[in-house]
């Protein structure tokens, strides 16, 4: 009898040796004349357990992890192909609390299927949303999206349905769907995980978006720092075309939708939507003034829906299960689930998809298990490099867009970066300014020059040079950045800087 074994191909798993484990597993099995089928699945998101190897047994999938090549002889000796006992045995995958306590809507398939297997995709509910959308008028699809309450997951949280409605209403001979897969925020990897673990879902979401607004072409702007995601995605596009899921006759409907993959070139600002459009057009990634809105004049001057990977990947589930189903999760105006990402100095780092409204504390401790160093958590940066550093006194704040905004923070793309008490917050504030200086597109002076000034001022504070005056200067500089920048790069860089100053002032008074 052939035993099916799962070894993830997710790049986080690969980064800690999943390929070696898969290769040696095959060798061992062959040497012992055991018949195995090794499936390279996506990751379940319990990244501290990678490489997480699963064995399909009569009782279900049994997980072992983290597995190193050196563990394999003992695992075979323990009869792990039948789910045998071993110190690395974690029980049934779906019963591991970290996983069982999540609400997986977007990541429902990720980790379970072979990401590139089209049969797997359909067998696990894939295409159900697209099939429904094909039976509906564009305005009806948009209405479902509006009803779902889905908001943009790329950072700004703008309602997706409203954006789609604008593009639907814009008359044009050609419209586009532009998927923002630039995922530049440190501490975020949900876009990457979905692309590597369930790429057809993104393509399905983009196709539905195309049907909804009357766009026949989609572009995906993927960051170059994700070589493995690129491999999976380009293969998925090829296979989807061959299957007739994309192309001139989507699922035999006579409707048309094509997807093209473009690769970024190491620029953070190209994640900003108008800079991304410039980059897609083959230019420098300079931010465009708005108006015109990209929904009216976007890619190549045509009406364009720009959405983050997570936004578009939520769409098939919303179409399949209904807008009201999605809207039944979450709190207030923050509907649905958000795949949070626990990163940095955290014991149980990984992906946690839960309804919006969970507290930071629940994520950091119940899921995350505190720091990996065992020291107290001192600061947590939420929402990427432009997000605030939160002290422990803020850990009970619910993660919803309004509550965070009211407190002066942002949820952003759901990245949560944990620091223990060895962190130097003055250094982190300096880094925020430095990063802005490196990544500024250069269009406006406050951002281009102000960020470099910010680094200098913080260096003076660090040297103890006219400390009080320079702290005031830093605050004034932040004021200018916040008020006089064209985009959120310059506009939000003050957020990490000021939160460091406000909540960790003691770090700015020592030499």
């Amino acid at each position, binding site marked *: 009898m052939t035993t099916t074994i799962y070894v993830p191909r997710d*790049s986080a798993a690969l980064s800690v040796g999943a390929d070696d484990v898969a290769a040696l597993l095959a060798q061992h099995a062959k040497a012992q004349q055991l018949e195995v089928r090794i499936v390279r699945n996506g990751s379940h998101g319990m990244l501290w357990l990678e490489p997480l190897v699963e064995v399909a047994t009569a009782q279900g999938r049994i997980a072992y992890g983290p597995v190193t090549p050196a563990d394999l002889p003992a695992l075979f000796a323990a009869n792990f192909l039948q789910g045998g006992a071993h110190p690395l045995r974690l029980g049934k995958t779906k019963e591991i609390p970290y996983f069982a306590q999540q609400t997986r809507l977007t990541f429902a398939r990720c980790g379970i299927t072979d990401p590139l297997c089209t049969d797997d995709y359909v067998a696990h509910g894939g295409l159900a949303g697209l099939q429904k959308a094909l039976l509906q008028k564009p305005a009806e699809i948009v209405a479902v999206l509006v009803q779902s309450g889905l908001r943009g997951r790329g950072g700004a949280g703008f309602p997706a349905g409203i954006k789609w409605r604008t593009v639907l209403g814009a008359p044009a001979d050609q419209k586009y769907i532009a998927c923002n897969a630039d995922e530049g925020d*440190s501490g975020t*990897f949900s876009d990457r995980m979905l692309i590597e673990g369930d790429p057809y879902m993104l393509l399905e979401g983009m196709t539905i978006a195309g049907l909804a607004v009357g766009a026949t072409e989609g572009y995906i702007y993927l960051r170059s720092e994700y070589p493995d995601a*690129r491999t999976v995605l380009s293969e998925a596009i090829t296979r989807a075309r061959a299957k007739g899921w994309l192309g001139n006759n989507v699922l035999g409907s006579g409707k048309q939708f094509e997807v093209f993959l473009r690769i970024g070139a190491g620029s953070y600002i190209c994640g900003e939507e108008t800079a991304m459009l410039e*980059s897609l057009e083959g230019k420098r990634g300079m931010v465009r003034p708005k108006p015109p809105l990209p929904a009216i004049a976007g890619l190549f001057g045509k009406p364009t829906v720009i959405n983050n990977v997570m936004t578009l990947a939520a769409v098939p589930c919303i179409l399949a299960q209904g807008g009201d189903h999605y809207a039944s999760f979450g709190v207030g105006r923050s509907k649905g689930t958000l795949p949070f990402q626990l*990163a*940095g100095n955290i014991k149980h780092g990984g992906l946690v998809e839960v309804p919006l409204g969970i507290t930071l504390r629940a994520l950091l401790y119940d899921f995350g298990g505190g720091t990996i160093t065992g020291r107290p958590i001192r600061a947590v940066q939420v929402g990427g*490099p432009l997000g605030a550093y939160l002290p422990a006194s803020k850990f009970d704040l619910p993660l919803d867009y309004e509550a965070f905004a009211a407190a002066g923070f942002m949820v952003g793309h759901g990245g949560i*970066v944990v620091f223990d008490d060895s962190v130097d917050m003055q250094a982190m504030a300096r880094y925020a300014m430095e990063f802005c200086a490196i990544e500024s597109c250069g269009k406006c002076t406050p951002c281009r020059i102000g960020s470099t000034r910010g680094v200098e001022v913080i260096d003076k504070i660090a040297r103890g040079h006219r400390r009080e005056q320079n702290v005031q200067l830093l605050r004034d500089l932040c004021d200018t950045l916040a008020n006089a920048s064209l985009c959120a790069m310059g506009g939000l860089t003050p957020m990490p800087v000021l939160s460091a100053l406000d909540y960790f002032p003691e770090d700015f008074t020592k030499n």
Partner: protein
Amino acid sequence: MHPSASNRADASTSIPKDSTSVIDAAIARLGSLKGALLPILHDIHEQLGYVPPAAVARIAQGLNLSQAEVHGVISFYHDFRTSPPGRHVIKLCRAEACQAMGSKHLEAHLTAQLGIGMNDTTADGSVTVEPVYCLGNCALAPSLLIDGKVIGRVTKRRLDQLLDGCRNQGAGA
């Protein structure tokens, strides 16, 4: 493949690629794409490891752009090198999640071991080191990319092993 992934291929072949033909082939193959400039630059970069100065005029002519425009794009993006890299390229993550796990110490160790700064290549041409701002491996920080391959939970010891591999001209990882 990632731009730097090609370095491994370059290392295994002693015949230098004819850069002119690489450039012209990229223009011929990709020139008709919408927004063709980035795909063309990536293609050249992947094959040669950098964008040679000679590419600017040829691309400008092929795409009907000014040389200033092409040069402007090359210089805007951090990815594009304008001189050949070493046989192996290490991109060390500098972003917040990796900092939380001690990437600054790793960077100091790396540059000290090699005796070069970031964005520099060792005198023997074996290794180029560059910063990168997040590889999406932030739960298994600190991370680096070596010849297009992501490595997580990097320790000084692991870094030394990787450097030994580079110096011995073996596979990058």
